[in-house]
């Protein structure tokens, strides 16, 4: 397996191919908009939906970089609010779809590249950041689901 193939595989394992932890797509499955926007009582914390927004932003930014498109950078905290959190399941499903789309777009771009491409433009390092970042927030989403009681007991 080439280095490029390996990195694409790991990217998949952070999104929709389960390896050692339930990846992002699995962590969003079966949630209603109301559950996705739930916050535990106490200290202000980000909801599942807001975490998903944050992950979408950084993947969309990497895609824009790879496509040499202009990208308007926003403040870190604002990245949690790039889609409006509502109690409407259609809105939540659109957010899931956006996460799906950007993942597929990034993957489509990567599979056309060689291992040399990955090394030359610092992409390898950027991708590792994405892996770590997605694992971090997916872990939080799972914790929120367990606190909420919405994580399937058989998993």
């Amino acid at each position, binding site marked *: 397996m080439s280095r490029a193939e390996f990195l694409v595989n790991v990217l998949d394992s952070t999104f929709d191919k389960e390896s050692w932890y339930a990846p992002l797509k699995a962590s969003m499955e079966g949630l209603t908009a109301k559950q996705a926007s739930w916050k535990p009582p106490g200290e202000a914390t980000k909801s599942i939906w807001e975490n998903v927004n944050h992950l979408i932003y950084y993947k969309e930014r990497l895609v824009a970089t790879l496509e040499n498109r202009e990208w308007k950078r926003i403040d870190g905290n604002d990245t949690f609010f790039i889609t409006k959190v509502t109690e409407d399941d259609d809105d939540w499903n659109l957010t899931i779809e956006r996460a799906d789309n950007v993942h597929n777009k990034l993957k489509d771009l990567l599979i056309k590249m060689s291992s040399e491409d990955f090394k030359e433009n610092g992409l390898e390092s950027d991708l590792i*950041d994405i892996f770590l970042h997605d*694992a*971090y927030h997916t*872990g939080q989403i799972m914790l929120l689901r367990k606190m909420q009681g919405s994580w399937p007991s058989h998993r």
Partner: protein
Amino acid sequence: MNLFKIQYDWIRLTRETLFQYCETLSPTDYEKKLDGFSDESILSLHAHVAGCYQGWLGARALGKSLPDITPESIHNVQEMREIFRKTDELVYEFLEKFEDNWDQSVEVTFRNGSQADFTALWLFTHTMTHEFHHKGQIVKIGRQLGYAPPDTDLIEPMIKKPANH
């Protein structure tokens, strides 16, 4: 340039931020089990993260015989720092051994006797990602306990070269 050594140095920096945050928690809160989360505590997740590095890189890849890291044997952040100091030694030894040989397969024998091959690249990527998965949970638990956490999700190093950023 050893990309993975640089990456691990970043990881250690964010880990240090996390340790400093943990030192602001009361000792009781550091080991407090969170209801509804498999009775995990910040201390137990920290120990689990160190155990993952030790198990995959120390025991399986480097073939060392190491005692298990159990949460019961660790009582505070200072002791956890010492556990990670030893973990760092293992990780740097691993990075040195496999530098330029990331595709080298390592045959791993599990406790139940089964065997499987993993590349050095997979092993290192797994242990890093595993730490981040649980680090996100650690700060979330800390916030639930009433301590606002710092940013530890390591995205800022991405802000570099491209001019349109």
